[in-house]
């Protein structure tokens, strides 16, 4: 009667192993000095890991469209939080107004 989507165990195990591999890569890369690129790799891997958890463990890939929309909405508001706050701190000291935030 209820038509729930059961995700195969194989997929869960594959996601888990991928998360482990990505964790190993991010730790290994952290010991190599790549300058600013370290941040890009580190955050890229973290975003990839989070996406895997959201899509498969949290079943967003399998639900109706409403859930992905709400989830994406949450991350969009997060970007608004980051974007507007940064636009303040980054522009301090421009045009001679205020003290720059960066040392």
């Amino acid at each position, binding site marked *: *009667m*209820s*038509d*729930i989507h*059961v*995700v195969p*165990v194989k997929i*869960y*195990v594959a*996601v*888990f192993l991928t*998360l*482990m591999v990505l*964790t190993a890569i*991010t*730790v290994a890369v*952290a*010991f*190599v*000095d790549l300058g600013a690129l*370290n*941040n890009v790799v*580190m*955050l890229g*891997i*973290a975003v990839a*890991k*989070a996406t895997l*958890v*959201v899509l*498969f*463990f*949290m*079943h967003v890939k399998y*639900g*109706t469209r*409403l*859930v992905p929309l*709400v*989830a994406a*909405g*949450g*991350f969009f*508001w*997060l970007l608004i*939080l*980051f974007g507007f*706050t*940064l636009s303040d*701190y980054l522009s301090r000291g421009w045009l001679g107004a205020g003290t720059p*935030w*960066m*040392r």
Partner: protein
Amino acid sequence: MSTAHPAVLHHQFDTLEQQKESATLGMWLFLVQEILFFGGLFMAYMLYRWRDPQAFAAGSHELDITLGLVNTVILIASSLTMAMAVHSAQTDKNKALVRYLVATGILGLAFLVIKYFEYSAKWEHHLVPGPNFHFPELAIDGRAEIFFSLYFAMTGMHALHMVVGLVLLGWLLVPAARGRFNSQYHNPIECFGLYWHFVDIVWIFLFPLLYLIGRHYHGAV
């Protein structure tokens, strides 16, 4: 008007699918609020690290990467056991459901025990912000204290979420052991799983941002 109505279907819903979707959607709305709550902490981290990357690298260098890594593996493993718990409920395997919930709880507890040892080591090394704070490199003492304030605020708030998760898990174990959940009705297990995975995601970002940014730090200039 008297159609067959499963006992687990609340009267305001037409179907079990609708009931499940409402529960999932409500949980996601709560999680969206949680994303923004932790977002404020990540925002503070971003600004202070941008302002003083050197002090953050120095502070990060004092963290125990092995313990951080072990906890990352433990937490991701607990997400797998949680996913398997939901899977067991969906496939009417009640014994497996209880076993996977217990496994998730043990892994969550292990995470907190390791966190406790990490915190006590920081206390002994005078790295807890406050009057006892003394950073090994005196030149950046006050600047490193900002890193450790954020370290304790972020990991502490995350650990608090783990504690809440473990309490909820214990609370769910009772109806699970009594066989209340099955393929028709397992919304509490599904929603708790969403919460647990969310807490895992927060750690997925905390681990690199706190533990990994100081791995090639060679002292303050």
